């Protein structure tokens, strides 16, 4: 798993919190503490567009499947639906009582699902005229840190240490007690496993079916901050940032760290790598960090 830094996306003022590839992988949207979302071309390193309108830092981005819209959430307690081309915000959903940590679209971008520090998950209807959430899930006992929406499921991870998979088709919610504050949870690409980063410095891979622990990945540093970890697009590797500025690669099956790159410094000088996002098809990943830079790594 050798990767080279091919590009640096520089332009955010302050920390970059999240990055998200569009569905085809041509562009990447990053949200930062400068209250803006920037759309980049990771090949050329150019900032295509800047979407400003958030009142506080941007913490989560979700891009619609048709790439025409994206939603961003942040510290201003609002979920904003943007039109990519015009750069205007289409709708703004407010109602959360605290900052929103993550956001997800359903398969046709008609529903926005947000997870907030107010310990609720809310469903917002983009089609209806109403601006009230169509459903509120308040099972979480603490901040909902991560949200992922698939065709029929909503994965919510909470600081209370529970993974909740809301299966709409079954009408059931499976709760997995991880026991540590979960900061990031993502389905594997085959949607059979859940990768969960916890604040005890361990990344765990769970079987979605029965909640069993498949593997755990250690070696990075993650005790205080939310670090969005990910799986490679072929589900072969687990990639995560670290609080000391490294990005770490683990073999999914073996659980051994196969590589670690000092992407944003090392040791005491290292800056927190807030997220690692893998390209949907290529072996490319984007790291975001509190030093305001996003690095593009490629094989």
């Amino acid at each position, binding site marked *: 798993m050798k990767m080279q830094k091919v590009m640096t996306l520089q332009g955010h003022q302050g920390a970059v919190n999240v990055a998200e590839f569009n569905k085809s992988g041509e562009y990447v949207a990053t949200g930062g503490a400068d209250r803006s979302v920037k759309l980049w071309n990771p090949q050329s390193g150019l900032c295509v567009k800047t979407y400003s309108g958030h009142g506080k830092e941007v913490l989560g981005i979700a891009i619609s499947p048709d790439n025409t819209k994206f939603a961003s959430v942040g510290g201003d307690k609002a979920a904003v639906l943007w039109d990519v081309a015009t750069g205007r915000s289409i709708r703004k959903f407010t109602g959360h009582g605290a900052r929103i940590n993550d956001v997800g679209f359903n398969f046709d971008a008609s529903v926005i699902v947000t997870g907030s520090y107010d310990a609720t998950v809310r469903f917002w209807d983009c089609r209806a005229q109403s601006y009230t959430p*169509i459903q509120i899930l308040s099972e979480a006992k603490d901040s909902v840190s991560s949200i992922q929406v698939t065709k029929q499921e909503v994965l919510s991870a909470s600081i209370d240490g529970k993974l909740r998979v809301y299966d*709409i088709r079954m009408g059931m919610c499976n709760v997995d007690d991880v026991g540590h504050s979960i900061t990031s949870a993502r389905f594997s690409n085959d949607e059979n496993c859940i990768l969960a980063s916890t604040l005890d410095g361990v990344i765990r891979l769970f079987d979605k079916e029965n909640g069993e622990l498949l593997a755990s990945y250690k070696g990075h540093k993650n005790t205080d901050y939310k670090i969005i970890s990910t799986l490679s697009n072929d589900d072969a590797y687990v990639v995560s940032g670290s609080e000391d500025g490294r990005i770490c690669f683990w073999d999914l099956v073996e659980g051994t760290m196969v590589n670690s790159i000092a992407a944003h410094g090392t040791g005491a000088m290292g800056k927190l790598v807030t997220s690692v996002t893998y390209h949907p098809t290529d072996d490319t990943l984007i790291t975001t960090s509190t030093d305001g830079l996003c690095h593009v790594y490629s094989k």
Partner: protein
Amino acid sequence: MDDLFDSGGFFGTPQPASASDVKAKDRNSVLPVFLQEARDERGRKRLHGAFTGGFSAGYFNTVGSKEGWQPQTFVSSRSQRNKFEQNVDQFMDEEDLAEINNAKKVTATQDFDALGSTQRELARKAAVTQAVEKSDGPIASRILQDLIIPSSDPIGVRLLRKMGWRDGQGVGPRAKRKFTEKQDDEDDVHAENVLFAPRDIRDVILTGRVGRFGVGYDRFGDGADVFRPNASSNADGGGSGGGSSLFQERQRNAFGKSGGFGTGVFEEEDEDVYGGGGAPGNLGGLKNSRMSIVDDDEEDDSEWHRMSSSKKKPVIQQRRSDTNSTANERTGFDGKPPLSGFHVASIQLTAPIWFDAPKPPADYIPKHRLAFERQSAVSTPYPLQPNQQQPNLTAERRREILGEEALAGPTRSVFSYMSARQQDALQALIDSKIAGKDGGKKKDDKQPIPDAVPVDKETAVAALKGFLPFTGDEAKQARYKSFLEGKAGVREGDVKFPPHFTPREVAHELLEFSKSAHMYKPLSGMMASRFTSSGDGGATKDKDSTEPKERVYGRATRSSIEFRPHKLVCKRFNIANPYPEPKQTGPTPPKALTEADLQKEILNKDAMSELIHYVEGGGAPVSGPAGRDGAAVKIHAVVAEEEKAVEEEKVEPARPAMDIFKAIFADSDSEDDESSEEDEKVVEAKAPLKVVANAPVPVAAPVPTVPVKAAVVASAPSTTSLPPPTFRPLFSRKQDRSKVVEPIQPVSAAPETVPESVPVPSNPDVMVVDSPSKATPAEPAAIPLPNLSSDEDDAPPPVVTKPLQAASWATSLISKKPPASVVPIKRSRDGDESSSASDSSDESGDEDRRRKHRKSSSSSSSKKEKKKKEGKEKKRKKDKSSSSKKKSSRHREEEVVDEWVEATASAVVRSERDAKDSRERETKRDRERDRDGERSKPVGHHNRPRASDFF
């Protein structure tokens, strides 16, 4: 001369031998008037020349020099610059300069002359009040006094007034006032609980003493008071013994504002310039210049006394004036009379004698005990020690005594992490230590701590963790800490006080410590359990979650809960609802029919179609051949749809009944209708072709409630003229109302009054016909109808209001004003339209009403109408002849289009085209149908009563 003077008396002014002996400036004083010359103070002649009345402009009045103002050449070179400057004062002689110097004196303006003007004000007030007291009309005078407010109050007074101060009051917080016997007793009774403003007492202005006289020295000795002001006005400054400014003030007061004698023109005449004149022999104005601080109510009787006594210094006098009179005879403790200006106090203050607190007997127990208690006291588990403080029991102590369990709050103590046995052992150890220490202490210092609150171990432990007071004194803080540690049993040994501490100081400090320990102990028990410190995050948060090492993920950590997604979420996720509504699960199982079910049964599909069939087949006039079948189909479809919608929305069983009522009574623009209509319009707009294919009938917007209406109509017992009995008591029939209205036949037909006063159909008929082209062609045809029908005997109530409406509308059009007198009539549009197919007269009336309603309610539609008026009159006529449905539908469609504009631009174009298409199609359709309706207009056909007839 000398002997002449010595020899005795002489008369007159001694004259000099000749006037020239006298100095020029004094010469006038010795010359007779006719010889006197005008001279200045230096004796220079002011008047010169042949005409001594002329003013000397020559030498003597020149600019101070012999040359005077001499012209001179102006010379200025580069090396020697001329610095010649001219000032104004160069052209002035000394008289002018003196004047200028006088003008240059900085004096406070009246506004800011706080002391002076306030003083003046007070003096004026005092004078007025005195005058008022003397005269017998106090109220009137006071009112007058209040009314006449001086135009310029000093700024301080104005500020004070804004802050709530009122004239006559003193400055300061309001307080209770003690009343002396002198005052009116009835006031006392009511004034018990009243707070009074402080008395208005003048400030004492203390000026520095510049003389070398001792305190109490009276410069003027036993001289008359008369000389005092004069003496002070000598302005010799030194030796005035203080208060020279006061004297000046006094003088100013006495002589008025202008500093001269008498009352000026611009001065208030009521000012008591001469000090009230009550005291003969006194120089005027002195009365107001009292310097002593005395109460106002004492001024009368103390006046003379003060006058006779020294007024040198501001003196705080005794309150009672009668004591003052005797005060002078007293001598001080040294046997000497008091200094002038001082009085011997009438009340001798004796030093308070302090007694030590009585010592309680040794066996005294500070609690009363009943006899039986005394007996049983021996057996109590906690016998009270003589020195033990009984009342101060903490909750913990009480719990201990009662043998209760501790509350399960999170204990913050390190001891809580020890095992129970260890704790017990430790407790025992501590107890023994404390007991030993306490015993030792008692032996050491016999002095018992006066009110020492006993500090138990828990309190001490808690207080140790809390805030440590005495931050200013580190040594004391250290002692406090060691005290707490000793109490908590953490540390052995006594608190070490510095050796210079007296036992009392030690006791005091111990008391302080114990109190602080109780005060600064952190939250405990219940309160503490509500908060969690930020430090221990995950450790205590999840008590159920075990250590990660031990954790086996899987079945143990997995739990499943029910999750009921909202049906809209399911819809958006394109997933069938996992918890479907019970009605949608399939064919409804047969069950006993409840009343609600029966009610709902009225509206089920079969019943509805049956009813519709009945309505159609039962001779209900149908508008046209084209509409009939299509309408039926459409109605069926819509009924089915509505049925579904009703089921989906889980309407309460009572809803159908409400629908019926709504269909009959509700306003045609009620929200439900519109929303449902809009929904349907959306569908139509999206697929206009489909609509055309399905429904050749006019837009089906109002249809949803049509079946309801039909049901009601059909469910009426028969086609009798009587309305359903339910509705009868609520409304007076139109016939009745028309009868009431009919007698009023106005002669004049003012546009405003006509609508109300035209119950006779023939009138509006004429009017409408006469009305200019604005009246639609459909209306004249519509109007005669009620006239005809009202003639019928058994017929349904004649529609009297309709011509009325039409007429009013027509007049409103004529007058280009909305008819003010028309009361909006509530009526179901659906009801109208159900009958509109059969009755065009009704329709026209409805149209009027609706148009009016639109006019008043929606400005947009009225704007549209205006546009139409301006631009396309032809088209407008056409429109008016067509049914109103078209308009409403167009309006609705435009709304839909508006919505689409928001959505996408491309969609807008398409939808607009669609909307236009459908509109045109509808227009065509409406026109056809109207024609048909007119053709087939049955005059006497509407035998069946309609709900609309009752309005």
